[in-house]
């Protein structure tokens, strides 16, 4: 479907400073259309900060982020970036908890976002169809009129993914989508992710190697704010430096976990 080869997102030489501390230094990242990319690395490697830069939450002190081959988004506000088609899911579920599940999806739905448009917006049958479809996709069909705050942790995560999908972004940024989930929930999230990755470009920050291994896709390893290695899971796992800074430390733990 998508013409592979055209980068939809290109980060060049991105540097982020917090009070002199360089969280990200000269990071490069290229994302192809339709690609599913995992961003891994030990704590404090700058993964989340990278996502923050792309979605506009953090302004880089140097470098550029180009979207769709032409737009530099480092000068844009968060909401403008979101409107361009970059969606972000945060680590902790951040849904609107005093609104119903359906309302959450409704305002996230792709639509004109101006005051005038929302003032006179009418729900047509097409919209309703889309909302209901999304609701069943994230498995919350029976809970459409629940207060979102009343959902379980996993359900909140799915709702948030559902909200992102309603936005119909071209690029999705997911920060640890399976953190804190039960095994069963993790599996279901994995399915969701496969589904999502089919139609769009996705960047996932993840710690759970087991989860990452289920996807045959490119992995980028970050360490101390810099790019350490980029390649397939096998290549990355075979790399000595990666093993040293990251996998080395986790191999033991990981082994015990897979045998459990």
């Amino acid at each position, binding site marked *: 479907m998508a013409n592979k080869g055209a980068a939809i997102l290109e980060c060049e030489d991105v540097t982020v400073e*917090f*009070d002199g501390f360089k*969280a990200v230094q000269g990071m490069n990242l290229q994302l192809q259309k339709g690609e599913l990319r995992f961003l891994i690395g030990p704590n404090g490697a700058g993964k989340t900060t990278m996502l923050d830069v792309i979605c506009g*939450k953090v302004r880089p002190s140097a470098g550029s982020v180009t979207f769709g081959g032409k737009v530099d988004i480092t000068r844009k506000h968060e909401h403008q970036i979101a409107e361009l088609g970059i969606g972000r899911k945060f680590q902790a579920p951040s849904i609107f908890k005093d609104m119903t599940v359906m309302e959450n999806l409704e305002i996230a739905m792709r639509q004109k976002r101006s005051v005038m448009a929302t003032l006179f917006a009418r729900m047509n049958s097409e919209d309703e169809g889309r909302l209901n479809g999304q609701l069943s996709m994230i498995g919350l069909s029976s809970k459409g009129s629940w207060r979102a705050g009343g959902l379980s942790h996993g359900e909140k995560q799915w709702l948030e993914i559902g909200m992102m999908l309603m936005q119909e972004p071209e690029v999705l940024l997911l920060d640890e989508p399976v953190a804190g989930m039960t095994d069963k929930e993790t599996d279901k999230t994995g399915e969701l992710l496969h589904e999502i990755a089919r139609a769009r470009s996705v960047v996932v920050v993840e710690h759970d190697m087991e989860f990452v291994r289920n996807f045959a896709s490119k992995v980028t390893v970050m360490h101390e704010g810099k790019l350490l290695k980029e390649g397939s899971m096998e290549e990355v796992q075979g790399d000595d430096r990666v093993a040293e800074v990251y996998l080395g430390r986790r191999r033991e733990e990981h082994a015990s976990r897979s045998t459990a």
Partner: protein
Amino acid sequence: MELFILQLFNGLSISSILLLVALGLAITFGLMKVINMAHGELIMIGAYATYLTQNLFLDYMPASMFNWYFVLAIPVSFAIAFAIGLVLEMGLIRFLYGRPLDSLLATWGVGLVLQQLARTIFGAPNVAVKSPAWLDGGMQIFGGTLLPYKRLFIIALVIACLVAMYVYIYRSLEGRRMRAVMQNREMAACLGVSTRRVDAMTFAIGSGIAGIAGCALTLLGPIGPSLGTYYIVDAFMVVVLGGVGKLVGTVLGATGIGMFNTLFEYWTNASLGKVLVFVCIVAFLQWKPSGLVAMRTRSLD
């Protein structure tokens, strides 16, 4: 020249009063994120505590001792305001952590009740506090300029309070616990710090300092049920302008407002001066929403 020095001193004096009034808030608002609108009423309580101490000396102590009532009044004001702050924290404020706007409204209600309580106990009219004789008069400098002892005393008192607070927060075990809880509540709790106790103590200390402010204000102004309402908004402006959560910011905020207030008041008149100061604060906060000394964090919230 003489006028210039006098005005400089006046500005300093107003700054010191503002700082004294705002110090307690800097703790309750700056550290605990509780908007205590009853802060002004705690100041009022401190003032009435001074009045009561004075009356006790008048009634039970020899007249020669009278001048020393004020020395006792400072700790008494602190203690009474501290106790009321403690009760307030345990009975109300603890339900309001994490809801700053609600704490604003609820404590406003408390302030209303305290004012009315004062009116019921002491009557609506102002009461008089006779300042001790050793604070009468002033220091002559450069021939003519007279710096009143009372204002000098308040400046000294503020410095003393600041030093005490610094030592308490940064040099004592209790203070370390307090900082730990304010920075990372869960972690502190995990490490065995009783967060409930620290919360209560912190709030009570903030209240106690308001009591000291009330005691000092009896030297210069009226003592009545609505005393607190004159200072509360100014106090908030000092803390917000200075930057929430930083003592240095509060000091700078108070100095800034005090100096500009004196300057504008001298140039124009008292009403316009006040308006100008507030306009400047609003404009400044548009430019630097987190105040003079900002706490930099990676968090957006």
